[in-house]
């Protein structure tokens, strides 16, 4: 139901000015209860009022009521917060321990200092976020340990008592760790596992339910969070830690590779980004992004991305080796004409990002089939190699930019 905006504005004015009569309040309540649109308008109006209020006053860092109106305990607690705020902000030593050495695609950095991402930015505790399939960012710690985050995901960096702490809430992470001090292993946390590393090269692929970790060099100790069991994973072995404790949690020699791959959405094949529908397709998920996905720069105006990503090398698949002249075939549908951007990322067969590649196509029919030779897809950054022959396919993505064209994918195949 569409509310009468003028009437709603009138009632909301009376509400925020605290002059509303009982019958008007009842009318407002009734309007809000019946209409979600009216509720949206209500939030906007009250938010505006609140912002105007704030804009005319100095920002209150931490609210304290006058002492006479609050208990001593509350006053002491609030006063302590203010003290801590002032003391810690004033005396916090500079804890920058890593540098963002490169990135591409929609990637953001957030920290307490409000720093914006840029190449060469020295960072301390904070969060890196990739918002698109083509997102990629590399961080190097002071001791030379490298971490690369690829695709849609979030990586939180921290350091405590000279120990590096990485929280991966989703996405693909590749780590090349220098030898760490005794008793201070680098620790990687995911929603389903925790890994300790003294010095090694390994890759982690995590989502909300499971984590796959494969080790190229050295030794990694992995704990499955669902039951606390631990396992050591040596070079050329991999392990999957799922939240379901009844699944296998044993390090195994890496599985055979495959040169072909096919999505299996009808059997609930998990996708990185996108919503599985009841009729066995996956619908694009909308993300809001402030970075220019084409050149990796921050935009003042945000961009809407409507993205579906696939992980061909996800937990129960053999690793996908890119070889020769292969093609990606997408079958799907749209509800309006538009351009789709398609890409994939590849890791070096022995770990670490090799590159990301993309192209675009105009789609003009409601049902479509797009065949794209991998050779048609160009590196998203000049430092990436021309063609990742012999390396591992990690992500595949398809998206529309700004315009939501109702993108749904029925299947994706990698054909020889």
């Amino acid at each position, binding site marked *: 139901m569409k509310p009468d905006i003028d009437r709603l*504005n*009138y009632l909301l*004015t009376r509400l925020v*000015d*605290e002059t509303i009569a*009982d019958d008007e309040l009842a009318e407002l*309540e009734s309007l*809000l*209860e019946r209409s*979600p649109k009216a*509720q*949206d308008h*209500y*939030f*906007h*109006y*009250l*938010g*505006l*009022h*609140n*912002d*105007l209020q*704030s*804009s*005319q*006053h100095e920002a*209150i*860092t*931490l*609210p*304290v*009521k006058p002492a006479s109106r*609050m208990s001593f305990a*509350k006053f002491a*607690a*609030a006063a*302590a*917060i203010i003290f*801590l*705020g002032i003391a*810690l902000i004033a005396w*916090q030593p500079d*804890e920058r321990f890593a540098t963002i050495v490169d990135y591409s695609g929609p990637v953001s950095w957030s920290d*307490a200092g409000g720093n914006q991402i840029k190449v060469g930015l020295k960072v301390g*505790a904070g969060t890196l976020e990739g918002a698109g399939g083509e997102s990629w960012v590399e961080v190097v710690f002071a001791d030379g340990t490298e971490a690369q985050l690829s695709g849609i995901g979030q990586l*939180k960096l921290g*350091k*405590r008592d000279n120990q590096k702490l990485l*929280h991966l*809430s989703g996405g693909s992470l590749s780590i090349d760790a220098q030898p760490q001090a005794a008793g201070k292993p680098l620790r990687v*946390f995911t*929603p389903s596992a925790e890994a300790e590393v003294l010095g090694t090269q390994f890759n982690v692929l995590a989502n909300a339910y499971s984590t796959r970790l494969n080790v190229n060099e050295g030794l990694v100790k992995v704990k499955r969070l669902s039951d606390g069991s631990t396992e050591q994973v040596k070079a050329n072995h991999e392990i999957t830690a799922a939240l379901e404790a009844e699944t296998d949690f044993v390090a195994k020699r890496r599985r055979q590779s495959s040169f072909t791959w096919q999505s299996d959405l009808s059997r609930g094949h998990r996708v990185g980004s996108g919503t599985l529908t009841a009729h066995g397709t996956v619908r694009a998920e*909308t993300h*809001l992004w402030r970075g220019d996905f084409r050149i990796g720069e921050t935009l003042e*105006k*945000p961009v*809407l991305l409507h993205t579906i990503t696939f992980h061909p090398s996800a937990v129960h698949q053999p690793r996908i080796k890119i070889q020769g002249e292969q093609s990606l075939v997408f079958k799907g549908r749209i509800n309006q004409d538009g351009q789709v951007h398609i890409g994939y990322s590849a890791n070096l067969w022995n770990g670490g990002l090799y590159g990301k590649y993309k192209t675009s196509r105009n789609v003009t029919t409601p049902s479509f089939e797009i065949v794209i030779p991998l050779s048609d897809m160009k590196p998203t950054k000049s430092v990436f190699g021309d063609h990742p022959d012999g390396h591992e396919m990690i992500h595949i993505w398809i998206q529309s930019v*700004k315009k*939501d064209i109702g993108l749904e994918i029925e299947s994706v195949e990698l054909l020889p």
Partner: protein
Amino acid sequence: MNPNSDFVRLWTRHQADVERYLFSMIPRQADAAEVLQDVSVLLWKKWDQYDADRPFIPWAIRFAYLEVLKWRQKQAREKLVFSDALVEQLNTRFDDHCPLNEARTKALENCLSKLGDQERKWISMRYGRHGAIREEARKSGISMHKLYYALEKIRSTLLNCVTESMRKEGWNEA
């Protein structure tokens, strides 16, 4: 990194979001401000339970909602602004609005700069010093009713301007 400093930083950064939420649940400025105070103290006490892997705002708003309910219980004998059912609906729907608050606030800054001098002055009086609107009415001879009507129009203009700015910038929930 000291966990207390983490709290101070996060609270300083997100206090406005919690304040906005509370005002939506308790649309009376003084009451909302009082509950905000209680929420800040509660969050600090609960800080050791905060999971740093999870976003701060939903965690804070969960406690803010509990404080709203507590405040409503305390007011049981007084007239509450909204029914329990509506407060629950609004609490659920607020989640959809939270991510865009910052963008709306920024858009408002720009929209304020487009107002005329007189309009800006009235906004400043209304939201600045207490009683300034009454004083202006007396000085200028304009009735209070007319001034409040003018403010209603200005807020409506600002609301349209913010919505339009959001739309132009590609935000789809404006």
